[in-house]
């Protein structure tokens, strides 16, 4: 028989009888109506009778806890009669510890103004934190230069390897593709003037001056910056960073600076490599699709390459390297102490690296054009 709850409030003495019966492991049809009646009770005394319950599990207990809490709240007296073994003791257990006094309401989506205010305050505090972070990283760099930093040499080398040689495959793939696309799209225009051979100059100049560095930067933000944030963030969660600090080892010496050093050393080299791969990509289109001779193509490329553009590209790369490493480590070090915080830190690391790279590109462009380069 399925679960039933029949409430009888006909009594003239202000009492109500609730008879529960059947198999309480299944749905009870009258449940909500009974709860509603107990929320605004028209009675001063309730007798709950469970003599006809055949089977039960915690659904019955949860229902009874709800009713009895309502009784307590509305000052209704209650009596439990003939419930199966175990039910009264479970109810006792449920009511044994009083409700936590500081129970909170569920979180609501925030008001726009509250959101605005909190965001503004957060911005201010994160500017402070970022300033503190940069200062301490700089101090670590000075200590490193003075050989007073606690660093493990093999850690630095491992970071250099991971940020350098480890990134070769993906940098090759993407930069080759960029050269290919630039050449292909450029050739469509240049063909109209019969000037396909200038595809080589187009690729050489654009890749070396800025495209190689930007593409490498975006790749490294996703690949290495994210991994710095995730690694340092998990170390924060596991209290590994605290362990370092309490041993008197600055995490900036031990964790942050090696990474910043590795990435800022490797990014310029990766940029040179990216330039080379981009030119190869362009050459692929030139030779196999436009039918230019490899000789002509590379002669034109060489004449378009200038030391100035290559150096500008390398400077961009070095600046991006510092930015990515700082953003990644900053997000990792300031990460919260749970799993989802590591996720947010990783996302923030990639997004903020790319934003700051854009800002840096604008600044560098202005500087170089003022200098007439």
């Amino acid at each position, binding site marked *: 028989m399925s679960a039933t709850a029949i409430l009888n409030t006909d009594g003239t003495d202000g009492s109500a009888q609730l008879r529960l019966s059947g198999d309480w492991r299944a749905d009870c049809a009258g*449940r*909500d109506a009974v*709860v509603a009646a107990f929320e605004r009770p028209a009675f001063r005394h309730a007798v709950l009778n469970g003599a006809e319950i055949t089977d039960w*599990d*915690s*659904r019955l*207990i*949860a*229902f009874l*806890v*709800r009713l009895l809490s309502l009784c307590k709240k509305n000052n209704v007296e209650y009596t439990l009669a003939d419930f199966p073994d*175990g039910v009264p*003791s*479970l109810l006792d*257990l*449920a*009511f*044994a*510890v*009083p*409700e*936590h*006094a*500081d*129970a*909170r*309401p*569920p*979180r609501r989506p925030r008001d726009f103004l509250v959101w605005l205010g909190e965001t503004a305050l957060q911005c201010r505090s994160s500017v402070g934190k970022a300033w503190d972070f940069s200062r301490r990283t700089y101090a670590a760099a000075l200590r490193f230069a003075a050989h007073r930093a606690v660093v493990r040499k093999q850690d630095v080398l491992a970071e250099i390897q991971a940020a350098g040689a480890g990134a070769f495959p993906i940098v090759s793939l993407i930069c080759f593709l960029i050269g290919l696309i630039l050449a292909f799209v450029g050739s469509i225009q240049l063909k109209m003037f019969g000037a396909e051979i200038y595809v080589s100059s187009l690729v050489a100049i654009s890749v070396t001056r800025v495209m190689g560095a930007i593409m490498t930067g975006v790749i490294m933000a996703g690949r290495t910056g994210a991994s710095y944030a995730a690694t340092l963030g998990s170390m924060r969660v596991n209290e590994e960073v605290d362990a370092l600090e309490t041993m008197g080892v600055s995490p900036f010496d031990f964790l942050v600076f090696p990474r910043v050093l590795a990435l800022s050393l490797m990014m310029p080299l990766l940029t040179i490599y990216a330039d080379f791969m981009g030119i190869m990509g362009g050459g692929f289109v030139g030779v196999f699709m436009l039918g230019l001779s490899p000789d002509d193509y590379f002669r034109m490329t060489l004449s378009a390459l200038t030391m100035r553009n290559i150096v500008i590209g390398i400077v961009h790369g070095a600046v991006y390297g510092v930015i990515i490493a700082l953003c990644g480590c900053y997000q990792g070090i300031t990460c*919260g*102490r*749970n*799993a*989802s*915080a590591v996720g947010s830190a990783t996302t923030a690391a990639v997004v903020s690296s790319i934003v700051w790279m854009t800002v840096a590109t604008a600044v560098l462009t202005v500087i170089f054009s003022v200098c007439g380069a």
Partner: protein
Amino acid sequence: MTKPFLEIKGLTVAYGENVIMHDVDFTVNERDVFIIMGGSGCGKSTLLTVLTGLKAPEKGTETFAGKPFWGNGATKADRDALMRKAGILYQSGALWSSMTLAENVAMPLEQYTDFTPAEIKDLVALKLDLVGLGGFQNYYPAEISGGMKKRAGLARALALDPQIVFFDEPSAGLDPISSKNLDDLILQIRENLRTTIVMVTHELPSIFAIGTNSIYLDARTKTVIARGNPNELLKNPPNETLEHFLTRGKK
């Protein structure tokens, strides 16, 4: 009266070539508080991952509530269905950090039942009340203490009215009083919710206070070297290793 709930026969467990335990046999009866004892690193947690279906044994069978769980043609789907009758409390509570306690406990109910939201809310309140965390519904795991996390983990393990609950070192990291309270809570839950308990622990007071049956896994011989009620084992230890363990080497 004593019906077997879990039957393990000839279990051999390995990580690759590295055999962790071999030829392990034991039976957990209904309403037992079954203790898996053993020194650190002898494979207790590993055994628990096998019993709960996360890791396949190399050899041997497990029967769960009369149905095949490992071996005898049991499939992943069978195991998943059977595990719905089980609750697990992990060493650290393993609460999902991005959810409130109420959401943690409600998650299995939302997944596996078609209860109405109102009823789920009542059930969540009940389970939290049972472990003494009434009113903490909207707290996040990071905002409560270690002992409370374990109790909240227990509330989640109890969400679906399990017939059996597995515990991995429930009292690790708790002070003696909290650990005693957790023991009492486990006993009350077994009594009132009619559950079977399988517990990995090396907390001697807990073992003697609540254990009704036990096995001792030996790291050297990689198999079970003693079994029975812990208090009786203390009176007549079958070998020196166990005597050493149960008396903390004092004899």
